[in-house]
């Protein structure tokens, strides 16, 4: 059986990659993808623990996360499309009208 720390380390790497994507990239689309990565890293952790402890609750929780992620992607992408239609850009550095 694959020890749990492998899964956890993979999840950590995924999470860091996702975080860096969210933090460093200025393209809102890539940021959304980063968020997906973070969520999936969390899912992986949940499932790994679920298997290690023989408890299905965490798997159920992972499904919820997937559902939420789908909704988030839908809403986020819709917003992005809306923004792009108005501003011809999804560069977050240029989306500062709320600041003023």
């Amino acid at each position, binding site marked *: 059986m694959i020890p749990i720390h492998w899964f956890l380390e993979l999840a950590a790497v995924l999470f860091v990659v996702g*975080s860096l994507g*969210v*933090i*460093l990239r*200025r393209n809102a689309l890539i*940021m959304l993808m980063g968020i997906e990565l973070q969520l999936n890293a969390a899912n992986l952790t949940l499932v790994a623990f679920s298997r290690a402890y023989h408890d299905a609750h965490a798997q159920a929780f992972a499904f919820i996360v997937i559902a939420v992620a789908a909704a988030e992607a839908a809403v986020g992408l819709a917003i992005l499309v809306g923004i792009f239609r108005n501003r011809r850009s999804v560069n*977050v*550095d240029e989306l*500062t009208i*709320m*600041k003023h």
Partner: protein
Amino acid sequence: MAEFPLHLIPILPFIGAAIALLIGRRLGKNVITLLCCGSVAAAFIVSVKGFLVLHHDLPPTGALVGRFFEAPWIKAGDLNISAGLAMDHLSAILCLVVTGIGFLIHVYSTAYMEHDENYTRFFAFLNLFTGSMLILVLGDSLPVTFVGWEGVGLCSYLLIGFWLDKDANALAGRKAFVVNRIGDFGFLLAMFLIYSRTGTLKYTELAGHIDQLSAHIWFGLPVAYFVGLLVLVGATGKSAQIPLYIWLPDAMAGPTPVSALIHAATMVTAGVYVVARLHFVFEAAPVTLAVVAVVGAITALFAATIGIAQRDMKKVLAYSTVSQLGFMFVGVGTYLNNTHTANYQAGIFHLVTHAFFKACLFLGAGSVMHGLNGEGDIMRMGGLRKWMPHTRWTFLIACLAIAGIFPLSGFWSKDAILGGVWHASWLTSGPPTNFLEKMAFAKDGDQFVIHLGHFLYPVLLLAAGCTAFYMFRLYWLAFGGEYRGPAVSSAALAHAVGDAHDTHAAHGHDDHGHDHAPAHESPPAITVVLWILAIGAIVIGFLGIPEVVRPGFDYFGEWLSPVLPPLVADESASEFWMFAAIALAVSGIGIGLAWVLYGHGPAVAVRNFVARAPRLYRLVFNKYYVDEIYDFLVVRPVRFTAFLLWKAFDAFFIDLILVNGVGFLVSGFGKLSKYLQNGDLQRYIVALIVGGAVIVGVGTHYDVWAGAKFETAVAGRDVRVVAHGAGTTAKRLQYRVDWEGDGKFGATQPSPNFKHTYDKPGSHKIAVEAIDPRWGTVSRESRTVKVQ
């Protein structure tokens, strides 16, 4: 007997005022006239009815009672005040005076204010005043009276500054208000003191609790003394006595009917009324009555001397009012120690007679100014008898009355005061302490009796002489001699009429003819009122003919006796006539002097005198510079303090430190935190992730960081070590100890308890390590222990 609708008396004028103020502009002048005069007339009729009920069908309580509403007016703890009214013999008289004279002055005003653009406002305020005054008079407890007291003060302020487009008028109103506030403060304190000692504020109940005021001693004096003096402070404010009289002469800035009604006939007598109303308090503290009398006498003479040198007709009358109010104060302050009564009746009697003749004088002055297009300087009048016969005769009658000429009303009332004060004697306790007191005190049995009356009598006599002098100076300067004002050509007059239309519309003056006469008689609404008042000034005195002169004719005293006990001085008829003769002689001298000096216009002697004693003249003309002294002693220090407070406290502390300081803090904090909230989502995420990592890190490592902290217990060479770490969560930590500080640690164990016995005494360095096996993190603490 059905309950008498007492509350109607004050409410009727209030209704008039309310309607006039709310919708008066739409009603038109005639409706306003009818409404306002009518409501006061109705109040007068109800008052008369009340008077008759009291006369024929006296209720067992001795007073008619009523209230505005059944529910308690003020209720707080034990305090329970109803909005109650009571009409007893004293307030009935005041009611008749207020509504009667008030009605006459309303009628007069319809002509006097005819062309004023604020006719409605004037009548509304006049009605408001009448209602307030009636509350003052009819209130059955101090708070209700106080409502009226403040109400009349407010109306006085509003009406003094009635022509508010002129700064001087507004300032005069403000002065009156502020000075009155000082008096009101005394009144309020007296009220608090009474309530705190007796637990009641109702006059009828208070009379029964008066011993509680006498029983409490403060600073060696019964509390009644303090109450009396505080009430006196209030009375000096409202009734324009020394030291608070200064507002009344300035109050002449208001329209003349206002001066007549408020500042001569009614409101200013409120102080006298309150002293009489609270007579039982004063009787419990007789020396305060002496203070009342002394204040009154000094004011009477002081104001009378100022009146001599004034040039403005209304100013003369104003000082005359102050002076006459002083007479009333002497009246109510005259105390007879062996009968334990005071001369209230005389004071109130003079109040009533004065209301007639002073109203007549003021309205006469108003008529003169009306006829002369607002000229008030008596040096520019003269010879008016030719053009204003009605005004002239009524003015003469009123002058004779105020001078106390037999048998006019002033004679009877002033004589009652003068005769009383001679007999007066105020109790005092303790022996005299200085030579002045030794002169004034005479030993009478075991008690010392102040024969102050013998000092006050000549003072008053002198004041009476001055009164006669300045009144007839006024009369002859205005009506006698030849006209001294500017010549009036018909062209100039026409010019004045056309040009100054606005101004005299605003000042209520009237022009009828384009004839060459510099003056004209006033319309009937004015002259009829003048005649009614003049006849009143003649006959009203016959109601108070003293017993000794004609038994059974002192209706006035008899009427007041149930409320105010009469002064029983053992004065014989011959004594009365002696006093009367002296007073008449003094008045005669005053009038004679006035005739010599002013009978045909200002005589050369006057000019010579002024030229020879310019300082004295200026001193008196400038009212002894009292206003300036007050300005220096009171107004400037207050202003300076206010300035300091403004600059130091308000501008610096409140505005700069508190208000701007808070603003500065907030904006400064905002300036700093705006760098945090910069709108860059990705920085937020960094902060979120870093923050989350820090929290997780600290949370998981805190145990071990704190885990190596330990305690030592030394017993001989045995040393126990307990690593207590960070409490309960330290369970999963592992520990090891280095007993000699040489880097050689013992075995790792999960228990934080260690024990070691040293071989040799001395200092040993102990180091403890806590290890978290999950992360392999280690923390270390060390300490030195000494063993024997």
